[in-house]
């Protein structure tokens, strides 16, 4: 079995990594998304380990390139390593990241049990990001990207995305 490894990000690199965003959710920095597991400087070389969100997420290759670019602009050469373990979970999205998602129009992930009820259409637990109503319904368990489901508000009638809980 895999043991949880501690996240370690060099303080000097945090501000640089905070400027790199998920290309598909451009308000969420990769730090707030929780995909950066380690970032250290060794002999003038920056080594960054990122973990994939969903296995097939096409954004990961772009994120790797964007980190390299940001590091270069800050004067660092860098190596990016994509790691599989520990597997990413939506719990790693920071409170700031959750807020950014909501403001962008994507409902933040619920806890695992509530998420299951919501995605089976059993209970109304997902709040409309447009008007705040809880009177919403699931339109599709799968959405515009692997990490989202599609909902619709019964009150303001706006469709919106919900970031699925992944644990």
């Amino acid at each position, binding site marked *: 079995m895999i043991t949880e490894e501690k996240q370690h990000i060099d303080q000097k690199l945090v501000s640089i990594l905070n400027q790199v965003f998920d290309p598909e959710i451009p308000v969420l920095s990769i730090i707030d998304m929780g995909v950066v597991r380690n970032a250290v400087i060794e002999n003038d070389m920056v080594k960054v380990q990122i973990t994939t969100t969903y*296995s097939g997420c096409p954004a990961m290759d772009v994120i790797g390139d964007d980190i390299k670019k940001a590091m270069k602009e800050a004067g660092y050469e860098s190596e990016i390593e994509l790691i599989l*373990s520990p597997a990413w979970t939506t719990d790693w999205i920071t409170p700031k990241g959750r807020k950014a998602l909501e403001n962008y129009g994507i409902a933040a992930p619920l806890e695992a049990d509530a998420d299951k009820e919501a995605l089976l259409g059993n209970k109304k637990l997902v709040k409309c990001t447009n008007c705040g109503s809880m009177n919403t319904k699931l339109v599709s368990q799968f959405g515009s990207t692997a990490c989202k489901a599609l909902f619709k508000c019964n009150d303001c009638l706006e469709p919106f995305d919900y970031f699925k809980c992944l644990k």
Partner: protein
Amino acid sequence: MKTNLYKYILLIADNSLILGQRLGELCGHGPNLETDIACTNISLDLFGQTRSYYQYAAKLKGDNSTEDDVAFLRKEQDYLNVLLVEQPNTDFAYIMARQFLFDVYHLLFLNELQKSHDVTLSAIAVKSIKEVSYHQRFSSDWIKRLGDGTSESHQKTQNAINDLWTYTDELFHQTDADKKMIIEGIGVDVTKLKESYYKRVVEVLQEATLEVPESKWFQKGGKQGIHTEHLGFILSDLQYMQRTFPNMTW
């Protein structure tokens, strides 16, 4: 090279590749927008998993092999996927029945694979379980909806289950690579998954008011590289670019 481990990885990964390709054929052709997006999302998850497996396989193979070589440059008989996943997208009932019959197995399999002594396989399994749980929920839901739907959807789903049933037993067939990997603590003993599999499948079929097929005659061969005629057509699509423009890259 660790031949048995390499072969064992293909036995797992080829299922995801071929099913992913089948689902990918539906891009823009699903019965409605939501199911179209769902099938291609599932396809993307499966391709992502396949990439992780093939990257590992390519590393074992050495001589500068890449994941793309493993995916695109093998002959039909070198693919080791089960016959179930290569069956065609006859209609939406077949697509969901195939998905459901595979998802139930896939989830049981990954649950065991995460205990593997091979850290890479274990890590891929831990990651994939999260995705495959969604797949299983989706396909089980559709089997119930179609089976317990109109008389037409019921009949079509029953036909699909009856036709695909013959490919289910192969999932639990042990190959030599399986046996060697089990001894090393790396592989999963699929024979032990059979009971839980049929239990879960029967539960869903009953809830869907569908009949459980009684046929005891099963098809196998995929794990030995002996496929139905459908695989050749899939590969001619899948491998087209690499065969036409050898060594092309994006």
